[in-house]
């Protein structure tokens, strides 16, 4: 046991002295979360909007203040004339105009259907669609707050009819996927590289000649990275909860346990890679490139698996991150318990056992 701790401590020394490893370990998750959370999102934030308020009553002002308060829009200016609206679009800065007709509040209060015009710059169709959806949501929301009793007929009648869940937050889709991706890359890359480095440097031979058992060498390599990957998991979780406002609806200990399971699966994969490669570059290439693409493709957080041809769907079953992604979504977003995710957990556990057995076996037979 003491020998084991000596080994683990040495491993930590390696990690904290190697700037490259540190960068992968802590730079990668932070960068990925920020990248997916802010840059690579279909969400549009602070879109410039022009309001043409012809009503100028209490209802229209309330609606405008709601739009202004939303993080999606910044009110660029208030215009009234049609030519002003067109000029605003021409400049290209304004993405959307909301026209509130005269008598809006009156119509709303007296039970007539109130109309609202949304004009969007559709030269970028996706943005236009998203923005109109946001505005519709805000209007619907406002109406529901006015008449909390259910089943009130739609009184504000925006011209766009598509409903959008105002709570829908773009990062929700990405965070579980990024978690899976980052943990997968980190665990496989760092373990495989660190073991292969010992082979390359010749220190592995010394370890094998020592009374320290080969199996322990493998395990002692895995333990520090388990701890570090869990730290990463906590960092990602904190970033997503506090920065990206992700909810954690399910049990946190369960999420932690499941992540630990997934990390162990990835570590086993890293060990396997290390026992079939003989240079650090090779190990890096296999674990970074070889894992990154399947993870992105087959996890389902960017490309829906349901739309893939059957053979590809079958292949996706072999990708551990796919199962972890399902678990995280279920626990974090839907707040489901172990009863629902036992199957996914079992798959991960099974993969771990298989990978670990193969890697310890190949590790040993290399010596005979």
């Amino acid at each position: 046991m003491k020998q084991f701790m000596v080994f683990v401590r040495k491993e930590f020394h390696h990690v904290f002295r190697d700037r490259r490893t540190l960068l992968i370990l802590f730079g990668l998750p932070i960068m990925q979360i920020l990248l997916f959370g802010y840059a690579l999102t279909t969400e549009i934030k602070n879109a410039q909007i022009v309001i043409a308020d012809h009503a100028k009553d209490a209802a229209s002002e309330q609606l405008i203040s709601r739009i202004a308060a939303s993080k999606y829009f910044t009110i660029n200016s208030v215009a009234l004339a049609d030519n002003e609206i067109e000029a605003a679009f021409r400049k290209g800065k304004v993405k959307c105009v909301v026209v509130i007709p005269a008598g809006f509040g009156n119509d709303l209060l007296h039970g007539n259907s109130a109309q609202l015009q949304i004009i969007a710059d559709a030269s970028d169709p996706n943005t236009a669609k998203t923005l109109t959806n946001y505005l519709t949501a805000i209007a619907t929301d406002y109406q529901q707050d006015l008449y909390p009793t259910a089943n009130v007929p739609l009184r504000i009648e925006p011209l766009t009819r598509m409903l959008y869940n105002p709570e829908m937050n773009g990062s929700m889709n990405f965070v579980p996927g990024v978690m899976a991706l980052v943990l997968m890359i980190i665990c496989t890359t760092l373990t495989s590289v660190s073991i292969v480095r010992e082979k390359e440097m010749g220190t592995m031979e010394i370890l094998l000649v020592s009374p320290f058992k080969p199996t322990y060498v493998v395990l002692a390599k895995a333990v520090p990275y388990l701890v570090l990957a869990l730290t990463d998991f906590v960092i990602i979780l904190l970033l997503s909860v506090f920065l990206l406002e992700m909810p954690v609806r399910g049990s946190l200990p369960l999420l932690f346990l499941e992540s630990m399971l997934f990390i162990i699966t990835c570590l086993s994969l890293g060990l396997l890679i290390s026992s079939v490669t003989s240079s650090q570059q090779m190990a890096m290439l296999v674990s970074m490139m070889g894992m990154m693409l399947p993870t992105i493709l087959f996890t389902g957080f960017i490309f829906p698996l349901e739309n893939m041809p059957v053979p590809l769907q079958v292949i996706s079953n072999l990708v551990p991150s796919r199962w972890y992604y399902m678990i995280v979504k279920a626990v974090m977003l839907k707040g489901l318990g172990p009863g629902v995710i036992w199957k996914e957990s079992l798959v991960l556990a099974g993969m771990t056992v298989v990978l670990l057995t193969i890697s310890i076996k190949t590790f040993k037979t290399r010596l005979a």
Partner: protein
Amino acid sequence: MNERAIVCKGLTKRFGDFIAVNNISFDVDQGEIFGFLGANGAGKTTAMRMLCGLSYPTSGEAAVAGYNVFKQQEAIKRNIGYMSQKFSLYESLTVKENIRFYGGVYGLSDRQLKEKGDELITQLGMENEVKKMVGSLPLGWKQKLAFSVAIIHQPRIVFLDEPTGGVDPVTRRQFWDLIYAAAEKGITIFVTTHYMDEAEYCNRISIMVDGRIDALDTPANLKQQFRATSMDEVFYALARSAKRSAD
């Protein structure tokens, strides 16, 4: 401690059709400096790996430190030290951390670690380098440190696989002083080398050709036997007969 450090009878290792080590037999006495010579690809490393418990012989018998290489590999590992031709300390650890790590792996207690570590550092005159990263030390120092670390747990036998490769003559000389000091303490030295001047420093040497041991005696006797003036000539005379090409 009077028993032989290494006893080897008909040791053979085959990889498929290839016989890497072909029926070699030799004994090494406790405290002896035994030179294990041979061209590249002659089978030295394979033989050494079997003796270190890293691979099983195909046939034959061998005992290292009195333990059987088939059944008691773990006991062998506790009683030997090993230093390979590749530099084998961790460059990103300090001198002291390396000592503590290897000592720790061999199960030395904290007190032993401290005692042995201090003794070793004084012996090498490295008091000022204790906290330096090993990677920043000159090669000669690294090799001397690696040797001292390899015998920190006072093994009965230490295996040195081309320990002085790439080291300058002065440092090599100093390295051999360390080897002599270790041998005087009763540690058996089993060393492979390509430097024939180093071969002369050994008590006895064996020369492997194509997996066989073709010569085994003291350097003086070998020179006489081959009517040579130097070990170089002895080595060439034997190595020329080799049929296997070096890898």
